[in-house]
């Protein structure tokens, strides 16, 4: 053969790793975060006496709830092969709605209104994606902008609303068995989402839609419904997170949650759920979130300047995503 074609294809098709390496990469993707989590946990437990105390562990769980709840919904959305960039805006909007409605009527109605707003927005996102046919990435990017504007209108012009309603902070400050309600909310939602993903037909459909949309459609899965429903769940968990936070501090700000969107997605990825959809799990996300919180916690306990924390977290994400994409390259070839 003519030598001019020699090397033309080199590097085009990723070189196929050996079977052992592929298995190894898949294991790292699968359990890497769990191993890192345990290693970090043990290291902190040995080096800092303040770490393994009930108070500190409780703090750890309670500090994870905001990102954790958003990330829990985001996990289903991402497994279904989509992104929700409006989750931070929903978080803030639900808080604004809750305070405004609570001011007009009762606290309970306010909280309900906040939750319902999350569901309605999630549904609207679902319609934009499935009926109008906009990419979920762009649709939720745009609906996030709309929500911040809508929040300002609901708050009648100001960016911040406060409430002095009696008992408004019951949900956010209350605790049972010396653990805040929000921690129970995180654990409860995680277990529920895990159950749905693992044991129900809907859960398997989520994996199917994210793994291969066309194949799922041909196999008779109502792909539109599944995708829309995951966005509704994403809206609901984001709203719940926003409500718990608003209830605790009695203040809601129309754009306070916007900076939570990307970290929540990052936590899902750190856990090992694939950004391409079709692979992942909720327990992974919980570990991812706890890991990130633990990094912050450890940095505080070891008195390392907190500015290094975001650099460290960023590095971990790069590593996690790197392993994800390398393991995918190897399983495709």
């Amino acid at each position, binding site marked *: 053969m003519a030598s001019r074609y020699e090397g033309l294809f080199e590097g*085009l098709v990723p070189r196929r790793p050996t079977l052992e390496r592929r298995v190894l990469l898949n294991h790292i993707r699968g359990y890497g975060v769990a191993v890192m989590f345990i290693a970090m946990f043990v290291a902190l437990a040995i080096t800092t006496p303040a770490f393994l105390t009930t108070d500190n562990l409780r703090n750890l769980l309670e500090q994870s709830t905001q990102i954790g709840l958003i990330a829990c919904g985001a996990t289903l959305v991402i497994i279904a092969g989509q992104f929700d960039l409006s989750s931070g805006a929903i978080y803030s909007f639900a808080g604004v709605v809750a305070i405004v409605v609570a001011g007009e009527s009762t606290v309970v109605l306010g909280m309900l209104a906040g939750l319902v707003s999350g569901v309605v927005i999630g549904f609207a996102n679902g319609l934009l994606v499935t009926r109008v046919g*906009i*990419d979920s*990435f762009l649709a939720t990017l*745009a609906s996030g902008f709309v929500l911040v*504007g809508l929040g300002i209108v609901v708050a009648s012009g100001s960016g911040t609303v406060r409430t002095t309603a009696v008992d408004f902070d019951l949900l956010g400050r209350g605790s049972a068995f010396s653990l805040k309600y929000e921690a129970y909310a995180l654990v409860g939602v995680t277990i529920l989402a895990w159950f749905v993903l693992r044991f129900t037909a809907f859960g398997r459909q989520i994996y199917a839609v994210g793994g291969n949309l066309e194949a799922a459609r041909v196999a008779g899965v109502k792909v539109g419904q599944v995708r829309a429903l995951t966005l509704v769940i994403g809206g609901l968990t984001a709203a719940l997170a926003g409500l718990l936070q608003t209830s605790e501090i009695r203040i809601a700000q129309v754009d306070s949650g916007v*900076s939570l969107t990307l970290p929540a*997605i990052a936590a899902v990825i750190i856990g090992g759920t694939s950004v391409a959809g079709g692979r992942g799990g909720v327990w992974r996300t919980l570990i991812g979130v706890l890991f990130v919180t633990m990094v912050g916690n450890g940095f505080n306990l070891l008195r390392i300047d907190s500015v290094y924390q975001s650099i460290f977290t*960023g590095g971990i994400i790069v590593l996690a995503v*790197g392993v994800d994409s390398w393991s995918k390259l190897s399983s495709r070839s």
Partner: protein
Amino acid sequence: MAELNVHAVKEEVFGRASWRWLIDYGIVVAFLILFTLLAILSDVFLTKTNLLNVIEASAVVGIVAVAATLVIIAGEFDLSVGAIFAVAAVISAEVAIAVNPIAGVVTGIAAGAVLGACNGMLITAGRVFSFIATIATALVFRGIALIITGGHRLSPRDEGFTTLGRETFVSVKYSVWIFIGFALVLGFVLARTAFGRYVYATGSNRLVARLSGVPSSHVRFAVFILSGIAAAVAGVIVASRSGQGSAELGLGFELSVIAAVAIGGTSIRGGQGAVWRTVIGVVFLSLIGNGLILAEVPLHYRRLTEGLIILLAVALGRARS
């Protein structure tokens, strides 16, 4: 097969040429309508001061969005522009304090190029999906900005520091000239050079592009450097305009940039789009803001109206792909 029939029906109903034309140039039509409407309805709109305001308001986002157009056409995302923006602002202020403002501007922009190269390395050599890789690097970059400032605002005393952001040349602000420069150069590069064609080829089908001899890894690497430089230039301008650098600058900036590019009609799936579209998209957004002020729309409806128009533009844009 069903798909084909739908297209056939569409063509019959709307007539292929006119339908395509309206979709392709929808943003231009919308822009012209809005412009004419404002010119007729408001006495103030067509004044030099007001038009300059419109352009000035779009310059900073515009500079970054023009570069982001190349990134998006090449099939990638850069979500770290807000963080690079902050790093450049902070470094330019720091160096302006330590040395002088000109050195500050130069090092700020150089830092942007270096950070852009880091993104490029990670995405090409590291084979990491750019959407997530740049979320991660954004965390790292903002951490760097925080370390430099130590959480404070840096305010250089040297008067020269504010020249770039506040002074004018031929009665037009420097930032506007820089925006025009970026748009012309990158517009030319994208539309008229081999590199530009490589960008389109890489974004529409990377494997086919590589088989045809396009150095797609180099192309992707290059667009991230361009994006880093543009974000840094914007950051340096804003630091100079406000007279200070802080690590919190540019939070959420990346999403506004992507929205501006998408409104212009560049496909976020890559392979399609143009720099002039982004310029129109950015100015269109600024025109809406301006129109809402001139029409004396209550302040609290402005963000909502802007959001709804972005949503509408995005919904219309998907018909293109």
